[in-house]
């Protein structure tokens, strides 16, 4: 759990792939966000149009300092079947939310054994290999800054990080040759092994695209190259923020706009001070308009936040469902 109460998910020990309800909870949702401003004429989706389905997975470049690459990696690792599913799920969110869902798609591998905030090098594409094709949630692990089991507990068995996450009991070497995925449907097959360099912060940038491994990436460019930035969002908090603005709008209308709007003075009301009526009435009329506009604006902010919250939530649900499917069909030996 983060400070804001949303769940963190990571792959459980001994499980290849993800299972709903246990191991795909992330600290942060690595998904592209919608621009919240309802008045931005360009619209978020136009601005983030490239976020639909990043294809490349620059293995070894999933360091915490490069969340965008992490997400891209996960997406890239996506296999034809699941990867496509995850990507499309995300893409669906893209409409109106500036690629909200399009992003967030990432390979399981990134999550499972990903360097989790460490150097990509360490991360080894083990997970990515095995469960390519899952979306969205995995790369968030890296973003969450989870310790890399391959570094902190090299060769150890199942352990638990200080954060309470289960570390896969796989003695992943710093340098890993990624085996050919055996998960049905997660790979188009015939993928040559990918050797991940062990140098910290190394080969990520120059790594060949993992699109070949995943096979389903579609897009040819890494998201990092599209200028997409990683975001952190809590749908629950966004929902609360939306609720706050909705409440504020209602309260503002009831406590400010209505009392102000009910004022209808006349010059007679000012007795001998009739000179004061006109300037007061001018200010009053402006306040009437402002107070009405304010209520509308607060409602608009609420609506947009609510929409964004729903978008993030939908993406998370979609990815969770996708991970459940993969876990069900996964045949990668533990």
């Amino acid at each position: 759990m983060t400070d804001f109460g949303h769940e963190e998910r990571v792959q459980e020990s001994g499980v290849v792939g993800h299972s709903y309800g246990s191991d795909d909870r992330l600290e942060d949702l690595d998904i592209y966000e919608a621009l919240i401003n309802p008045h931005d004429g360009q619209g978020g989706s136009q601005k983030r149009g490239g976020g639909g389905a990043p294809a490349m997975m620059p293995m070894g470049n999933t360091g915490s300092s490069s969340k965008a690459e992490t997400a891209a990696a996960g997406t890239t690792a996506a296999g034809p079947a699941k990867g496509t599913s995850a990507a499309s799920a995300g893409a669906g969110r893209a409409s109106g939310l500036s690629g909200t869902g399009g992003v967030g798609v990432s390979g399981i591998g990134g999550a499972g054994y990903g360097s989790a905030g460490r150097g990509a090098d360490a991360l080894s594409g083990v997970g990515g290999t095995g469960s390519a094709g899952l979306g969205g949630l995995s790369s968030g692990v890296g973003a969450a800054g989870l310790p890399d089991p391959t570094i902190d507990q090299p060769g150890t068995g199942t352990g638990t990080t200080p954060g309470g996450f289960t570390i896969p009991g796989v003695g992943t070497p710093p340098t890993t040759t990624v085996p050919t995925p055996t998960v049905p449907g997660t790979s188009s097959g015939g993928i040559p092994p990918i050797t991940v360099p062990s140098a910290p912060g190394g080969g990520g940038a120059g790594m060949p695209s993992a699109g070949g491994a995943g096979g389903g990436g579609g897009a040819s460019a890494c998201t990092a190259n599209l200028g997409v930035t990683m975001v952190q969002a809590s749908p629950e908090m966004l929902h609360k923020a939306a609720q706050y603005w909705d409440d504020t709008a209602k309260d503002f209308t009831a406590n400010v706009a209505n009392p102000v709007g009910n004022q209808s003075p006349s010059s007679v009301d000012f007795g001998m001070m009739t000179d004061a009526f006109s300037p007061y009435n001018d200010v009053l009329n402006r306040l009437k308009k402002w107070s009405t506009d304010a209520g509308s604006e607060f409602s608009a902010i609420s609506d947009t936040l609510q929409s964004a919250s729903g978008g993030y939530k939908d993406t998370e649900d979609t990815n969770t469902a996708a991970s459940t499917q993969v876990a069900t069909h996964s045949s990668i030996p533990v």
Partner: protein
Amino acid sequence: MTTTTQTPMTSAAIQSLDPSAVSALTSLKAACTACEDADNAQGKKGAEEAGDMYDGACQDDAKKRFLTQGKAIIDDMWATFNALQDGYQSSLRPHENVGPRLHQVYADTWVVVGQKIAPVIADVQKRQQQDHWTGAGAGDYMKQLPVQLAALNEFSQYVSVAGAGVETPAQLQQAVFTAFVTMAGGTAQKVQGYAGTETGDRYFQRCAWAANTLSQCVDWFTNNLMTGNGTWQSSLDDHTSQMTSTAVTKAAVLTGDAWPKATMKTDTSKLPTGTDPKYTTPSGVGSVGTDGPITDRGEDAGVSVDDAVPSTGGYA
């Protein structure tokens, strides 16, 4: 961004001062009556004294002339009193509820609205500290907050302006009543003092003093209090000047009389950082109620026994 809300302050309730004005006029009338009674009582002796100065039919003529002169003084006093009372009844009394009603708008609407806005401003200010959401969209959202905060702050300032828009006239109108009550009450005390003054061989002197004092009150009431000249008009002018100043007419954030809608292009660095008040209560408002005529008894010497002499004429 520094936030300083200007919430209209609650002030003491304003009530109609008509009862006080009526009471002051009643006291003034009683004081005038006391002067009349004292002068009449003294005048009887003066009339006898004037009659004693003559023989035969001339005695009655001397008495009549003496008393006629005294009655003219008394009538003049009452005429002046009535002018003051009628002026109040016809010109000022109709506005007895203006101050209370305007103040009620201030207290029940603007003070309350200001109090309702304050926590909203505090909440929005606090929400600028959120860190559960980062990214471009979050940045966009966070860009909204200082804009909305600045708008709310300025709105709050305008609420204060609106509050002053009714409260200052209320105070001024009330001050007019206060000034009248002060004037009438003070004059009543003065006239009552005249009634108890020993005037020696001067007759109907008390009513002559009262008439002179009341005449000054009527002049002040007519030419100053009811017109504002030298009393409240300068404060009202100051008030209207502030209400129509560019600080009020030209909003800094709420430009175009529209609530701001922050966009990605909004330059939040240009948002006003200060909360300089758009309105300051005119300094003279509080002193208007203490205004009043500086009256004196005047130089009228009343009536003497010698004034009853036919050849010398009389007061009237």
